[in-house]
Every structure is written in C-alpha cells, then in structure tokens.
C-alpha cells in the first residue's frame, strides 16, 4: 500500500515538472501548426530564459523587470532565428529544416556555455516563504506559482487564439495555408510571429521553474525532447492536449523515478513517445499522407 503522502508528493513534483514540459510543448505546437517545422531549439529558449533572468537579477534589475525582459528578449531572439536560419531555407525538405534547428540549438548551447559556464544557477523564488504542508506533502510556494502561471496562461492563449483576429489568422495558416493567403494573410509574417510567441512562452517556462531547479547550460536538450513528446500527444497541432500531455509526462516521470529508479526517469518520456507514434493515431496517418503526397 503506497503511502498517500508519498503519492501526493510525487504528484506535486510531477505537476511542477510537467508545467515546464507543457509550456515547451505549447511552443512546439505554435510553431508546428503555423509553419510545419519542428523547432529543436525550443528547450534552449527555456534555458536561455532562466539564465538570462538570473544574470539580469544579478546585475541589479528588480526581479519582475528581469523576468519580463528575459521573456521578451528571448521571444525576439526566436523570431530572429526564424528570419535568419529558417526563412532562407523555406523550401528545403523537413529533414533539412529539423537539422537547421538542431544546429541552432547547438550554437545557442555553445554560447550559453561560454557566457555562463557549466555552473548551475538558481534564482530566488517569486515569493519568499516556507513551504506549505498539504496532506503530508511538501509544496513549495514556487510550485504554486508554476502551477498558477500555467493554468492562467492556458486560457489566455486560448482566448488569444479563438477570439482575436491575430490568433485566428495564426490558426488559419496552420489549417489551410492557401486559403489563408487568399484572405490576405501574410504567412511569412505569421511564421515570424509564431516563432516569437513560442520563444517567449518557452522562456517563460524556464523563468518560472528556475527557482526550483538548478539551471544549467545544457538543460535545453532534454527539455526539448520531452516537450516534444508532450506536444506529440496532441498531434502537434492541439494546444490543450499538449498542455495536458506535459503534465501527464511530468507525473509519469515522477512516479517512475519514485517507484522504479531515478536513472530510467528520462527513458519514460521516450517510451511514451514510441507508444504514441506506433499506435498510429489518425492525425499521424493524415500528416504522413501529406508528407507522401510530395513525389
């Protein structure tokens, strides 16, 4: 019989970790749904967000300003990455595009190594205080922030995508690019916006989790891969499912680390990936048909 406190603790850890996966997954979905590109550098944005914010705080900026500056700055960087790295190669095969983003991720990671070195960094929590005790589990205040931000962000994004003209036109690009162009939508500008938005969202994820984990220059890779797995659960085009997938993944990992072994924790995400891809859901079949229609 598993003690409930332990279960609850795992759940809390899982949800906390899962929230960053969810935010990165959102970034994947935004970019993929508008441009059909899988952006390998997504996790690096989270890393950059965290480390940049830490440095800005260390330089003397108040925490709130530093966070906002980091998020906006990384968003701009992401848009820049699209403009410089992906737009020139627009007509290349999907494989080449993925590799370009891999290259970008590597370059970003290298720069991070130069700037911040291999040391882990930690940020002060948003609100100082002692952790809460709920039903035998310890919940850090920052975890509440994390959960809160994700839960707030989701409906905000939902409103953005369903109620505003800009959000609608972003979705339209993904749903039917030709029709979008016929409406007068400039798909290039939309792609730029998509990248900027997902960069900011990724950075936000990094920023809110920085007080809990130790941010290092190489955390981006695993975050990218796991965020991707979460996004894939929703077929790479569905926002709510991607967010749910992120949380689910976090919880599964936490349970797995607790009950099986912490070393295999990372493998859980990929086993989940395999299971999803190999069960051949309908959206996958459809996406593949589009890939095959090429020749």
């Amino acid at each position: 019989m598993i003690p409930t406190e332990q279960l609850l603790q795992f759940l809390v850890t899982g949800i906390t970790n899962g929230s960053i996966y969810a935010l990165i997954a959102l970034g994947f979905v935004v970019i993929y749904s508008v441009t059909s590109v899988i952006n390998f550098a997504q996790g690096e944005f989270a890393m950059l967000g965290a480390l940049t914010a830490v440095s800005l705080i260390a330089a003397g900026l108040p925490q709130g300003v530093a966070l906002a500056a980091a998020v906006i700055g990384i968003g701009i960087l992401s848009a820049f990455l699209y403009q410089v790295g992906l737009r020139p190669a627009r007509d290349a095969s999907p494989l080449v595009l993925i590799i370009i983003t891999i290259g970008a991720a590597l370059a970003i990671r290298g720069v991070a190594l130069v700037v911040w070195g291999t040391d882990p960094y930690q940020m002060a929590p948003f609100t100082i205080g002692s952790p809460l005790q709920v039903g035998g589990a310890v919940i850090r205040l920052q975890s509440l922030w994390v959960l809160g931000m994700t839960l707030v962000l989701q409906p905000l994004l939902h409103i953005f995508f369903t109620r505003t003209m800009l959000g609608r036109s972003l979705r339209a690009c993904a749903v039917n690019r030709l029709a979008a162009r016929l409406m007068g939508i400039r798909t290039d500008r939309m792609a730029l916006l998509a990248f900027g938005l997902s960069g900011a969202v990724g950075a936000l994820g990094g920023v809110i989790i920085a007080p809990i984990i130790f941010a290092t220059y190489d955390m981006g890779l695993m975050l990218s891969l796991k965020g991707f797995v979460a996004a894939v659960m929703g077929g790479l085009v569905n926002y709510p499912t991607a967010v749910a997938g992120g949380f689910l993944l976090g919880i599964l990992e936490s349970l797995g680390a607790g009950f099986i072994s912490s070393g295999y924790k990372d493998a859980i995400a990929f086993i989940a990936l395999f299971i999803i891809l190999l069960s051949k859901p309908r959206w996958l079949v459809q996406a593949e048909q589009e890939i095959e229609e090429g020749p």
Partner: protein
Amino acid sequence: MLVVEGLAAGYGRVQVLHSVSLHVRRGEIVTLNGPNGAGKTTLLNAIMGVVTPRNGRIRLRDRDLAGLGPERMVHLGVGYVPERRQIFASMTVLDNLWLGAYHRSGRQEKRTILQDMEQVFSVFPILRERERQVAGTLSGGQQQMLALGRALMAKPDILLMDEPSLGLAPLVVAEIMRVIADLRRNGMTILLVEQNAKAALAIADRGYVMEGGRIALEGRGKELLADERVQRAYLGGRTVRDEGARP
C-alpha cells in the same frame, strides 16, 4: 472591369493555357465552361496570382495584375471562392467569416464587419443557425455557402468562383445558382467557372467555353445554352471511328 489578353500559363513543365483572352464587364455574370483539364482553374489561379503567367496580360480596372501574389488580390477588391471550397475546416463558421474580413480588420471597422456578417446571415440563414459549428462538419452545400459568404465578407468588387457546383446534389446546385443570380442583381460582378454548363449558362449574361487551354466558343448565355457545339466540346467532337476496324 477585368480583362485577360493572350494569357499563357502552366505548372512546372506542363503548359495548360495557351492563349486565352476574355473580359468581364461591371455588373455581369460571365461564365467559363469546359471539360476538366481545359484550364479553367489554371486561369483563375493565374488571375489570383497563385500561378505566374508565362505570357499575356491581366488587367483589373486598367491596372496590370502581373506578379501580384494572392495576398494582394483581396486588397484590390477581388473575392475568390476556390475550387473545393478551401474553408478552414477545423474552425467555426464564425471564425471563417471573421477571417474573410481579415484584410479589413486593420482599420477600426469592427462594427461594419459585424453588420456585414448580419447581411451574410440573411442571405444564408442556415449559416446563422450553425454559426458555432465546426466548418468541416457542414454539408457540402452549406460549406459552399460558407465559402461564398466568407468571400463576401471581404467586400469585393468582383467575385471569382471556381466550380461551386462540384460534388453537390442538383437541388443544392440550383440554390447556389439562385444566390449567385441574386448577387448580380445587387450589383456584383461575377466570373463563374463551372463544369456544369447548363446551370451556369442559365444565369449568365455571357459565356465562354474553353477546350485544351484555349477559348473555343463565346457568346450570350442563352445562345450558348442551345448551341450543340457546347455538347461536343465536352463529349468529344470527332466522329467515332467505326468499331469494326478494331485490331
């Protein structure tokens, strides 16, 4: 209003249009008929800038349209209802209509847009009933109405329609044609590309029949309707060689 002269266009290595000339005057319904493969959709694609012409000219109100992409066309007042609708299938009816008005949304026109949406609903009451329904779940005829409504949301001066009757039952086709005729009555200029020659010619002022990338016939709607050559353009003009000689 719209003048096409000597247009030649194609895709990659395939030449589809050879030398097409036609014109549409303000307030007319002009229909372009012909069998599949004749180049009707290619012509519309060339006008809309989806395909770059290799030769010839396209002029809208005496302004040359060469080289403009489809994003620009809607700003010039050209509304397009593409072949097979091309609606945003996973978005709602309302979303689709909103997107139709995209190019107007920059300026503070929200109230006028809502008014126009009301107007679209009055022409297509069925869309009002289903305004929150996901567009892909509408029937073929309803999707066609949505596509037309969406194009109208852009407040175009001229409407290009590509095969609106495609895949629709005869009753629905008649309904669509009625709506199109009504639009013309209210002053819209329409270039209607249709494989269904009878339905199109019945409401058209003038018609062209295309074959093999060229204009084969031209005339007033009613006259073409009765012209036997139209039938031959569709079902093969030459007399069939006698069967006995088959090897």
